[in-house]
């Protein structure tokens, strides 16, 4: 009886050991697969497939992308090669909000502005138009010249306080008009764009609709939500010229959209870079961050703004004009306000 008990006990210990080994091996295998190039490819593809909001306006067949890229992610791929291949796959969406971030590298689509003329040279503006003198209000610089003020907001990642914005509006309130330069403003915090825009509208207005995904299907959206912007007193009530180029993206695109329909406003320069929609982030199994557009933005007239907002007056700076220190877009704005 005793030896039988010992045998059973020994056997159960062996079974337990094998079970523990099997469980730990299974856990390792699962973990390794998730971190492997094929695992990362599947995870990234699926995140975009289920969460990306702009499929209805992008000419991309995402299922075909899976088939085209599946064989590129072999298990022997190095982390850098895996990163590069994932970056190539994501670039097919042609969306400046879509990005892949690792601790050492970033892959982001830049085709919305890089192939186009820069149409902006800040050094020329400071040297030849502001004569190296200007005031600073948070992330904004400005200068009053005669009856016109030039206001440059470099990035909506930089905030200006309510007090700074109030002082700015009071400083320009008696002028004939202001030039708001948002060229090369690639966005940032949308709240800064809204707080700035609120100083240039005279009454509450519908400025956009936001469509949020409601499920994993490409066409699954909650009902469009209207977004109203209220003026923040004091507001500027005279004429406004907004200067744009292709690098005006995301929150900057929204800012132009908020004001472009106002009859007091003229937009001069190039098409904006687009970037309608709010980016979210997803952390992949290996810790890399996948950024994607999670919402769709429509203008107040329910038009998509993903591909940019057209100016009222197209204007471009030639290389020879830039070399001569001229900014013909700014000159056109000054002319319009005279």
């Amino acid at each position, binding site marked *: 009886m005793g030896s039988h008990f010992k045998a059973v006990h020994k056997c159960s210990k062996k079974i337990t050991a094998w079970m523990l080994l099997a469980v730990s091996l299974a856990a390792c295998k699962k973990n390794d697969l*998730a971190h492997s190039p094929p695992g990362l490819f599947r*995870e990234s593809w699926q995140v975009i497939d289920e*969460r990306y*909001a702009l499929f209805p306006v992008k000419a991309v067949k995402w299922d075909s992308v899976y088939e085209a890229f599946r064989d590129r992610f072999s298990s022997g791929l190095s982390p850098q090669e895996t990163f590069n291949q994932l970056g190539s796959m994501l670039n097919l969406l042609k969306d400046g909000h879509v990005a892949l971030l690792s*601790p050492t590298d970033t892959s982001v689509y830049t085709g919305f502005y890089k192939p186009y003329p820069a149409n902006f040279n800040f050094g020329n503006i400071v040297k030849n138009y502001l004569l190296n003198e200007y005031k600073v209000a948070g992330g904004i610089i400005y200068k009053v010249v005669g009856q016109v003020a030039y206001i440059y907001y470099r990035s909506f990642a930089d905030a200006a306080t309510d007090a700074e914005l109030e002082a700015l509006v009071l400083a320009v309130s008696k002028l004939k008009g202001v030039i708001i330069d948002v060229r090369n403003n690639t966005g940032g915090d*949308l*709240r800064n764009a809204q707080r700035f825009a609120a100083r240039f509208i005279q009454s509450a207005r519908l400025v956009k609709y*936001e469509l*949020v*995904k*409601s*499920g994993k299907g490409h066409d699954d959206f*909650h*009902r469009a*939500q209207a*977004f109203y912007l209220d003026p923040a007193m004091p507001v500027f009530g005279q004429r406004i010229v907004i200067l744009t180029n292709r690098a005006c993206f995301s929150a900057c695109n929204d800012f132009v959209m908020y004001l472009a329909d106002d009859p007091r406003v003229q937009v001069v320069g190039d098409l904006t870079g687009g970037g309608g929609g*709010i*980016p*979210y*982030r*997803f*952390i*992949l*199994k*290996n*810790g*890399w*961050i996948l*950024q994607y557009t*999670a*919402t769709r933005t429509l203008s107040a007239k329910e038009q998509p703004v993903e591909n940019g907002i057209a100016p009222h007056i197209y204007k471009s700076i030639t290389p020879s004009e830039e070399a001569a220190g001229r900014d013909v877009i700014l000159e056109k704005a000054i002319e319009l306000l005279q």
Partner: protein
Amino acid sequence: MRSFLFCCIVFFQNAAAQEAADPGFRVLLAPVAGFVSVQDKSFSNLNYSGRVPGAAIDVEFTKRRWQHSLNLQFQTGQVEATGDLDASYRYFNTAYSLARSLGSHPGAAMQFKIGATLDYVHSTRKYQQLINNFNAYEHALSLMVLAEAAMQLESRSGVTVISNRLQFPAVSAVAQPAYGADAWDVPVEGSSASKAARVLFVPGFVLVKNRLSLAHSFSARSQLLFSYLFSYMKIDDKRASVLNIHQLSLGYGFTF
């Protein structure tokens, strides 16, 4: 026959002792050492985990076979994942339980209880490496069933009670951000917690709590309690999330 008589005598002695010794109100204060592992599938398939200290207050009232208890817990801390990814974590739980002794008399050495719990969990995470969609929360109000087994040991230094309480939800009302509506400025329909609340049953929502306690009473009025609580919460809906919480607490109880 003699053993039956002996059992009857012991039973009535215990009963008489218990009638006299209903402990009344007991208040217990305890610092909590916690470890949590959390997975938010809206943000990542990674598990974030970390130590999250906190505090707990328990109030108990026992009258004959009925035990009323109110528990409050709060925990806060940082949870981390691979590659220096982190999130700030907060957890608040309050529960009211009503349990009734079964079979043996409350004064007996071995006791069993069954009852119900109204349990509310509020858990929030703020993910540092995310933009726009960095906030996650769950509100969960559950009606749970509970079962408890307790063993009482007497020694010269006092009375020790070892107990294990298991709780499982019957029905729950759960609120999370609406699917896709994580950003601060996207107020989609039903994105507020009250409007987003929906009724879920197992397996859509699972909340299992198991608490193993060791309580030692030095006197009629003072008690030292050591407990280990394991709590598993899983939401298997459009926004899937899993919380595994381990808590160790050592508290001091007063009886009024």
